[in-house]
């Protein structure tokens, strides 16, 4: 099995303002493959909680549109996960 690559995968940070917005994230998780970084799973998502999740390049556009349509505050913490994976090795061998 070849190692998984994460080219242009994104990590979103969303802060749902109320239960309705929290439910929107839960619904998005039903139809998209979201990897929850914080909290660890969809069912923990609640109003006023900071929610970080990873999403594929393919699905990120749909996620962004859904967040925009519902006037939800979000930021993109990581724009290209693969790049960040490579950048984590920023210390040279002694």
């Amino acid at each position: 099995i070849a190692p998984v690559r994460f080219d242009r995968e994104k990590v979103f940070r969303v802060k749902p303002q109320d239960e309705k917005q929290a439910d929107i994230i839960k619904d998005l998780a039903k139809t998209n493959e979201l990897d929850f970084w914080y909290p660890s799973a969809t069912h923990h998502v609640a109003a006023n909680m900071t929610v970080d999740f990873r999403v594929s390049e393919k699905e990120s556009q749909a996620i962004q549109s859904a967040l925009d349509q519902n006037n939800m505050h979000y930021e993109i913490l990581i724009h290209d996960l693969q790049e960040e994976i490579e950048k984590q090795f920023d210390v040279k061998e002694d």
Partner: protein
Amino acid sequence: TPGRHSYAKYNNWEKIVAWTEKMMDKHPEMVSRIKIGSTVENNPLYVLKIGKKNEKRKAIFMDCGIHAREWVSPAFCQWFVYQATKTYGRNKIMTKLLDRMNFYILPVFNVDGYIWSWTKNRMWRKNRSKNQNSKCIGTDLNRNFNASWNSISDTKNPCAENYRGSAPESEKETKAVTDFIRSHLNEIKVYITFHSYSQMLLFPYGYTSKLPPNHDVLAKVAKIGTDVLSTRYETRYTYGPIKSTIYPTSGSSLDWAYDLGIKYTFAFELRDKGKYGFLLPESQIKPTCRETMLAVKFIAKYILKHTS
């Protein structure tokens, strides 16, 4: 040969195994390695005992790397062993601690998952066991402990990242650790587990809103611990019971250890707060370890003074 081990870099499993051997060779009076079991893929589970050999004293059990992708956690366990052996006889506090107590360090709990995160999938979290009637692989070892195991239904799905397993302690890794802790229960006064990320110091409970009987003491230790941690680089940690501070969990190692009778149990969620998440750059390993060390030493010192 596995290549050069470095405390400033992330080390793969082969390097970590070679490092455990090196530590034993270098410090035979102080470091011994105990094989507590093996994984599904037949990798060894090693605990390093730091302290005087053949002496039963108060002990602190620490584990790192229960979640595969949280790489800074095993880095801390290695750093702790290094600092303990290096500063014994030089640093007053470390000398006092090691003269009076032992540390049991499990540098990588989820060995198979850790290897998988290095070789196949950097984002892997669970272990690598096969699940019956499912194509999905792996159990979340931090949901597999016998601590209100059945209470959160969303952990039932084998494809979920937080799948709890088929039964409490169904996983070889969990069973090896629980057996070891149970057999050393007379000695172990503190249990500390290291995760990443979100900068928190947590204590029981995760499965209930009920506060443990010594909540006030745990909160006091956590408060001072996080204050001490922040003195080095002003890194701010929050602290509190798992359920109200992070989110509700069932089957966690922390709650299990507490209910077993270890009255000082803590979980560190190390750096950072989301800028890098699980991909903390190597350049931040040392500062993260240095500041965490301050908190761990404080906890150890407190327990040495306040437990019989």
